[in-house]
């Protein structure tokens, strides 16, 4: 009974308080998001990933770094190594579980850097206009002109290999699209009446950009970041594969594939399993991003 009333309260057409309207809006977005099985799948996979990363020490059957040279390259299901062992006899399942932490770490760091830089550059360029706009947007064009992986390679070469540098290199190549998007939105927002009203009240550019323009750019930014996340994971895995990302003995998935590459014809599972993990996570981000776009950004792309 109480659940029924809660639902009615949430779905009410005439909210009585600001709080109710906000919660109801979120709830309806949630309903739309979860009504698509593809989006729901993505969400479930990502939740599972977070849980696995958090509970890694509880879930992993072995120490991910413990070598056992007598049991090298054992196949799937050997003894208690459910996914076999790698070339140093380390348990692949445990490495996979600990590797999820690295993947999430990369995702979190890139999410903290790239969209923020893009938002900053784009809104400042769009709001101030003139020479600032010219210079910032030319810079953005230059970064867009590079193929991303090649630019990231060159950056890692300059900074030295390592997971933080790989993240930095990926972020440096990922921000330009956000800057462009934020600028385009700022241009439409800038000329609206409410900005003029705020300006008349005496608000400076800093206040207008941070308090009034940023909140309006956030939703499309979130969609874009979620859709890009798959590409970011793939780029990080690619750098790891080339030996430029996480360094051994770190159980980063891309590096694990690169390790297994030498044995691909005889011991296929060593390289196959981490690849499946990368694929699953990046597919989940793509599914979620697709659904989020439908919910948050109805003008762009229809319901499939």
């Amino acid at each position, binding site marked *: 009974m109480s659940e029924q009333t809660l639902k009615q309260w949430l779905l009410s057409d005439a909210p009585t308080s600001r709080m109710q309207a906000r919660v109801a809006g979120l709830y309806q977005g949630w309903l739309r998001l979860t009504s698509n099985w593809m989006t729901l799948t993505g969400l479930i996979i990502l939740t599972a990933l977070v849980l696995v990363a958090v509970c890694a020490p509880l879930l992993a059957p072995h120490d991910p770094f413990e070598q056992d040279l007598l049991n090298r390259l054992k196949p799937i299901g050997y003894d208690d190594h459910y996914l076999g062992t790698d070339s140093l006899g380390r348990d692949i399942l445990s490495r996979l579980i600990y590797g999820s932490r690295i993947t999430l770490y990369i995702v979190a760091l890139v999410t903290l850097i790239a969209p923020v830089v893009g938002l900053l550059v784009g809104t400042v360029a769009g709001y101030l206009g003139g020479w600032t706009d010219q210079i910032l947007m*030319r810079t953005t064009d230059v970064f867009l002109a590079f193929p991303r*992986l*090649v630019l990231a390679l060159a950056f890692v*070469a300059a900074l030295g290999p390592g997971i933080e540098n790989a993240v930095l290199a990926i972020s440096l190549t990922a921000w330009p699209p956000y800057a462009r998007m934020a600028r385009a939105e700022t241009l439409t927002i800038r000329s609206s009446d409410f900005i003029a009203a705020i300006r008349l009240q005496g608000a400076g550019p800093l206040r207008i950009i941070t308090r009034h323009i940023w909140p309006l750019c956030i939703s499309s930014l979130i969609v874009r970041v979620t859709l890009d996340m798959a590409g970011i994971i793939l780029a990080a895995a*690619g750098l790891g594969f080339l030996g430029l990302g996480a360094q051994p003995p770190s159980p980063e998935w891309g590096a694990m594939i690169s390790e297994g590459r030498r044995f*691909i014809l005889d011991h296929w599972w060593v390289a*196959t399993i981490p690849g499946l993990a990368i694929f699953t996570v990046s597919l989940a981000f793509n599914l979620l991003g697709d659904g989020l776009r439908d919910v948050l950004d109805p003008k762009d792309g229809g319901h499939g």
Partner: protein
Amino acid sequence: MVSVTSQPEEGRKSAPFPAWLRKFLTTCGSIAATMLGLLLVTFVIGRVMPIDPVLAIVGERASQESYDAVYHQLGLDKPLMVQFFYYLWDVLHGDFGNSLLTARPVSQDIARVFPATMELATLGVVIGMFLGIPMGVLSAVHRGTWIDQTIRVLTLVGYSMPIFWLGMMGLLLFYGILGWVGGPGRLDIFFEGLVPSVTGMVLVDALLAGDMDVFWNGFSHLILPASLLGYYSLAYISRMTRSFMLEQLSAEYITTARVKGLSERQVIWGHAFKNIRVQLVTVVALSYANLLEGSVLTEIIFSWPGIGSYITTALLSADMNAVLGGTVVVGLIFICLNILSDLLYKIFDPRAK
């Protein structure tokens, strides 16, 4: 009388160039600015690299005098601005310095490896185009049905696969287990050096020499990596085709065409598809540019001696000139393809004028 003759002159004074020329000049200006920026970025990367270019040349046991001599010779004692202009000057003359690994000019190396990448990317984009466009049209026409869903899942999977992993799985299955295709590399070892290298593209060279054995062997090596790149670009091309088609199919002229009693085939291919061709040209050009990037990892998996392998090998052995030279070349090609796609758009679409 006087006023009549002076009027056009005044008009000319206020606008010294015709509009198209001014537009052309601004476009050229912005392209030049982008390219300058690109060179600036590679220059900065080269300066902050933790590799001493002098040590790389003179070796670790050189005396202080020879170190200083080379330091001076490389212009490293000059201000950074001056160094940048030297760098610019060299690049404009096609001089990227010598590669440490091959001890040859980087520009020669790149000219040697680039055809391999082009061969791979071209076949890749052709495959992506011929499969991707019909798939996109099909899923737009059958929107919301199982056909649409299947194609959508297929493209999402393409977006989500690590391409280097897919390449390894392809090698494992089609080369290792089934033996249908050639392994890594461009040719089997017995076929190497049989045809003279004219264009640097094995298939074209084999055709020019009329040697079909070499052609088919080269093809069996090329088809797997090219299909992978094709799948990669197919995902993008079919997605864009779908959204373009959906936009057209909801337009009113389509309803008119249907009301007039045209067959569904005529409506789709004769009306809707005709209107998205221009946009598709841009999409295909862009995905061609993107394949240059996707090919870096694919080339490594398939030991394909292209520009991607060249850059990565150079990177792993700290061969700075080769890395930066390769990056500049790839960046320039990328910019050129982008400009080309813009231009094609303007040529084919009268509204863009």
